[in-house]
Every structure is written in structure tokens, then in C-alpha cells.
């Protein structure tokens, strides 16, 4: 049994809960810091990154979230969630939670009228993955330790750094649950490894 949380400060939370549903997986909505303790994995949903950051600070989530990542527990961020995870944001002085070695540009495609949907090949996840881009960010650069999972028009739109997974689009807005199920599997494997380590020590 694994327990996966969806950070519910603002944004499309229920859609993630629906897409994460899997056998032997409990999905919980996270509004308070103390809920992080017994989670095996966490999702940062899409929404408005500036709003989420303000609420992260207001409710003292900042350090606990960084510690969650340092504890090697898997995190999956979509759109605004990806922005929260990036080390650096183009045109801004500092990143938010600074977990993933990547430079991200907000609203990289333009305004809402430029938002679109398409199908992408995502490494490890599958072909023809439905991808809805809404005022989406782009990953402009990644460090050597970051694996590029998908590109659109030559630009990086999904990446993975060890246990940290991020994409610019919204798999949660579609009925295609492959990306979320890929993450659930990451959480399962991470928990098994952690349990093994615990057994050895």
C-alpha cells in the first residue's frame, strides 16, 4: 500500500486524485504540513504558481516540502507544479522550491488564446500521450542529472531528475492516466527501496 498526497492550496486537485487512482494506493488531499509525514509521494497540481507560492510561505510548507524531496520521496509537478520545482525561473531572480536542476520560463507560449492540446511521445510513459497546454511553461535548460522525457517543437516539456518528475502540460485534464500511473509506479518502487534499506540497517 502506498499513500500519495495532492497539495491542495489552490488549483485542479480533484483531477489529479481521479488520475492517480490505482490498486493498493491511497490518495489524500493535503492542506496542512503535518499531513506530509506519512506520505510516500506527492503531487503539485496545476494552478497559479504565484498564488501557490504565497500560500506555501503563509502556511510554512516551504522547508517541509524541500525536506520531502531531500528524503528521496517522489514528487510529480504539472504546469504550475513544475514551476514550483525548478531551480531557476527565466526573468526572475530566484526559483521557488529549487528541487530540480532546470531553468523554466513561465507562460512561454503566450496568453490563453495560444493554449493548445496535442499528443506527445513521453519516454517511459508511452506514445500519443494526450497533452493539454494551458498558459504553459517550458523547460529551457536542464542539468546533466536531468533526463528529458518529452519535447514539443524542439522544446523540453517533461523531465525527470531521479525521484522528481515534472511536465509543462496537464495529463490530469484528460482520461489518459498513463503519466499518473507511471508516477504511482515510481512511488511504489521508491517505497520498496526505502523499506529494503530500513530492513538492512
Amino acid at each position: 500500500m502506498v499513500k500519495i498526497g495532492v497539495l491542495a492550496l489552490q488549483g485542479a486537485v480533484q483531477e489529479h486524485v481521479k488520475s492517480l487512482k490505482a490498486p493498493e494506493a491511497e490518495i489524500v488531499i493535503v492542506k496542512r504540513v503535518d499531513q506530509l509525514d506519512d506520505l510516500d509521494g506527492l503531487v503539485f497540481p496545476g494552478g497559479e504558481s504565484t498564488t501557490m507560492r504565497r500560500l506555501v510561505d503563509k502556511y510554512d510548507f516551504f522547508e517541509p516540502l524541500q525536506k520531502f524531496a531531500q528524503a528521496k520521496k517522489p514528487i510529480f509537478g504539472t504546469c504550475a507544479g513544475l514551476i514550483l520545482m525548478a531551480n531557476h525561473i527565466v526573468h526572475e531572480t530566484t526559483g521557488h522550491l529549487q528541487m530540480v536542476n532546470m531553468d523554466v520560463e513561465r507562460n512561454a507560449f503566450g496568453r490563453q488564446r495560444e493554449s493548445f492540446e496535442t499528443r506527445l511521445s513521453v519516454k517511459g510513459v508511452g506514445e500519443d500521450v494526450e497533452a493539454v497546454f494551458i498558459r504553459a511553461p517550458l523547460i529551457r535548460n536542464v542539468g546533466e542529472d536531468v533526463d528529458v522525457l518529452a519535447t514539443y517543437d524542439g522544446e523540453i516539456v517533461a523531465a525527470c531528475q531521479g525521484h522528481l518528475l515534472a511536465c509543462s502540460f496537464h495529463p490530469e485534464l484528460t482520461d489518459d492516466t498513463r503519466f499518473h500511473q507511471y508516477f504511482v509506479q515510481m512511488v511504489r518502487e521508491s517505497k520498496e527501496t526505502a523499506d529494503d534499506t530500513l530492513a538492512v540497517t
Partner: protein
Amino acid sequence: MADRGTDRVKRGMAEMQKGGVIMDVVNAEQAKIAEEAGAVAVMALERVPADIRAAGGVARMADPTIVEEVMNAVSIPVMAKARIGHIVEAKVLESLGVDYIDESEVLTPADEVYHLDKSEYTVPFVCGARDLGEAMRRVGEGASMLRTKGEPGTGNIVEAVRHMRMVQSELKKISGMSKDELMTEAKNLGAPYELLLDIKETGKLPVVNFAAGGIATPSDASLMMQLGADGVFVGSGIFKSDHPDKFARAIVEATTHYQDYDLIGRLSRGLGTAMQGIEISNLDPSERMQDRGW
């Protein structure tokens, strides 16, 4: 292949606003205060509804200079209002690049019979509704987001409560109906049959539904969330209060943690005076904005 302006892209944009507060602003300075306070979007206007009410006369789309000023000032989405049925105002706002258009009863209607065919646009639309029939007529025309009409610019929550309760109770009724009852219900509500069928199958509205029209305090925002709103619009409630910055922050927090009454109690302390309210029964029928639209 990239498809723009699809239902998923337009409705998805509203999904990302859930649990958030959208604030009316009239200039760049107010837009920045709203963004700093944690608004998920701003509505760029020439006047907030309370001032539109006070000024009287015909209320129209804002001067594009104001809309552009707000768009340049913040990185969160910017919405703007067009008059009901005013095809050209809506097209102008779309070409300006606003992220959402509100076909709004706060402005003076341009067409007494027809709302816009919102499916024709790449930009998504939000529309007001007092009941499920009105809500589904707007979705049928292509609205990607709904809100209660409430009674804008009054600082009085009673109408928004009425409209939210009405939509929620009709929603429950439809969910519990058998399929053979739906066509008659569609006729009674004046709602497209296919949309009612969709509600019966999913148990929820096909688009996000926010509360609007009379929210003036953190408790008002929390109340609307408890009644089933996905988020709230605050029009005059922020910049007509004594301390806009404090009110804005408190309303954002009360919307996120709408069931945390200790927190809402703390948020409500020392906020200063909320906007001056108006008793609905004192409004002349011609001043009732919610009766505009059909």
C-alpha cells in the same frame, strides 16, 4: 498537430483557477496588489460594480488602454467584461489577448434577445447564472466557466447564496432523476437535454462554477465555498473596503481554508470596515443587474 480553443483547453483554464479568488481591478497598481495578495486572476475594468451602480447611465467594455495596462502589470491571467450580446466588444477583447471574457450583466446589455455564440471564439468565456437552466443555456452557447450572478456592487451576499443554492439543488435533483424524466425537465428548465444527460451521468456541472455578486468579507467567501462554489470573484469588496491589501489577503486565505473557522476568525480581526452594503429590497427593479440576461 496543435489544436487551439478546444473545449478542454478553454474549460481547463478555469479548472486551474479552482480554490482561488479573482479580483476586480481598475488599474496597474490595484492589479499588483491583487497579485501580491495571491489572486489567481484579475478582472480589468474601468469601474468596479459599486461605482457603475453609482454612476448610472450605460456601462460598456473598458477602455483597451486600461486592459493593456493591467495585462502588462501582472503575470497572472487577466479577464475583462463585454456587454451581453456585444459581438464586437468580445472580438476586440479577444484580439487584445485577454485570457478570459466575462459576458457580464454588470455592463448594460447590447442585445435583449441573444447572448454571444461563445463557441465561435478561441478565448474562453465566463457567464453568470441564477439557476441551472440559465447555467446550461450559457454552456450550450459555449461558456467554459460559470458564476452565480448574485447582485453585483451591493456587498450583500444574499443573492449569490440564493443562486448557488438553486443551482446545487437542481444539480442534485437531476443526478437522482431517471432518464425518462430528463426531457420534460429540460423543457421546464429551458436547458439543453444533452447537458442534463451529462450532469445525470457525472453528478456534476460540465464546467467550473464560481461565486460572484456580493462577496465582501472572508466569511462571505468561505460561505460560498461551503455551498459548493469552486472559487470566488470579488468585485467591489476589496477596493471599496478600508484596507484593500488586508481584505485581499484575508479573502484568499479564507477561500483556501474555508472550513478552518479558527483561521477565519483570526483573519477577520481588525480588518477595518468592509464595503458599504445595500439592502436588496431597496433596489429599484431597474437597478437589479441579475435580471439582465435570459
